[in-house]
């Protein structure tokens, strides 16, 4: 494969800019998704009457529709009822909407793995519900959920490539753009792959270290 290095050097800065947008959207989207997951999984854990059904419906809707469709709904659908959001906002909300359900399920399984006796012994020491969750149940559940959460994070970062569909100049968008303009398919795609790897490999490595440390700290059994 003969790559045009001049082309690569010339357009590399575009990729850097695009990578910043990708990371920006991924960061805030995932953070939001995690917050959604914490709240929803807690509601499921406590079996909050009506809310529980709503969350279950949300999880099904979110997991069984493509992100691109969700983004189209936010970007092209919502303006019809008077809600106009910027592309970035739509992208972050979209990632949060999709990721929220994955985080919910991952955290829920962690919460449910904690023995009931933990809650009871905390209660018998006079802890209220909030403290029991914050100090006793959640930290233990997190340790169980971390591998799943890491997998979700990596999955969601990759999913951001879909936001080019609503005209956001992320990595995917820039690559498609360059191909369309100059027909430099090899160069554009090579740079795209490298860009994603440069973002994802460190995240992946960090996840591995985190998982290993949790296993070693292994306060569990």
């Amino acid at each position: 494969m003969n790559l045009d290095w001049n082309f690569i050097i010339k357009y590399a800065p575009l990729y850097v800019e695009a990578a910043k947008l990708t990371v920006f959207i991924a960061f805030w989207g995932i953070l939001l998704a995690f917050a959604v997951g914490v709240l929803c999984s807690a509601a499921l854990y406590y079996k909050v009457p009506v809310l529980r059904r709503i969350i279950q419906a949300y999880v099904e809707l979110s997991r069984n529709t493509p992100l691109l469709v969700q983004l189209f709904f936010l970007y092209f659908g919502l303006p019809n009822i008077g809600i106009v959001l910027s592309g970035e906002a739509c992208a972050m909300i979209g990632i949060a909407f999709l990721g929220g359900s994955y985080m919910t399920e991952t955290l829920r399984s962690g919460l449910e793995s904690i023995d009931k006796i933990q809650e009871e012994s905390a209660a018998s020491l006079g802890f209220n519900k909030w403290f029991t969750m914050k100090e006793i149940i959640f930290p233990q559940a997190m340790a169980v959920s971390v591998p799943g959460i890491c997998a979700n994070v990596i999955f969601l970062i990759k999913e951001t490539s879909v936001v080019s569909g609503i005209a956001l100049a992320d990595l995917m968008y820039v690559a498609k753009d360059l191909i369309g303009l100059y027909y430099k398919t090899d160069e554009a795609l090579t740079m795209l792959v490298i860009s994603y790897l440069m973002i994802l490999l460190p995240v992946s490595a960090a996840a591995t270290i985190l998982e290993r440390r949790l296993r070693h700290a292994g306060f569990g059994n």
Partner: protein
Amino acid sequence: MADEDRIMLEIAGLKKKFGEDVILDGVDLTINKGEVVVMLGSSGCGKSTLLRCINGLESFDKGSIRIDGEEIVSGSKALPRLRQKIGMVFQSYDLFPHRNILDNITLAPVKVQKRAKEDARAQAEQLLRRVGLWEKRKAYPRELSGGQKQRVAIVRALCMNPEIMLFDEVTAALDPEMVREVLDVMLELAQGGMTMLIVTHEMGFARAVADRIVFLDEGKLLENLPAETFFNNPSTQRAKDFLQTFEFKKTLTDERKDQLS
């Protein structure tokens, strides 16, 4: 002292059902301050449920429970405060696995009772030394033996300065050689004047530690006697049968003989 001042725990007409099953059928029990009461009865007779009702982990259908004059209502606002007067140790090791031993003990005094860290730590040290586990303070629960875990669980409850301690078959899940170390701690506690309600199947221990024995059978409190009277001369046939099951004789029981011959 007036009578009501001496009463630590007062249970009156306690009834509890799980669906159609009657678990507790009108239990009356009064425990005075400083008294050690052992509750006996076969598995499933409602002993654990009764203990769980006392600190509000379980709701009940009828009757009342009062701790130091204040009523226990499951799910009430006052419950977290009242629970601080009740120390409970469970059968299954219930230490917090993500915290070291010292944190396990001081977490509630600091976070719930808002005591100063140094103060809680000092008391934890004193108590841990008493049960011989001070050098384990930095260890995590999984690094301890079952007997050590239960001793820590007792210390954790004591560090809240409870007015009554409840023990729910705390040695039932232990290897036999670890039972003694836990019972010794409880015996010492009893001799120190702590008010205690103990559920156990260790008959020798029950006899040594108890001021009074109560015998629960199918949700009813059949016996409520001084320990020696209960063991020497129980008044009901059910209690006699129950005690019999713990006696090993050189000769087989008649029934067994018939079966084997």
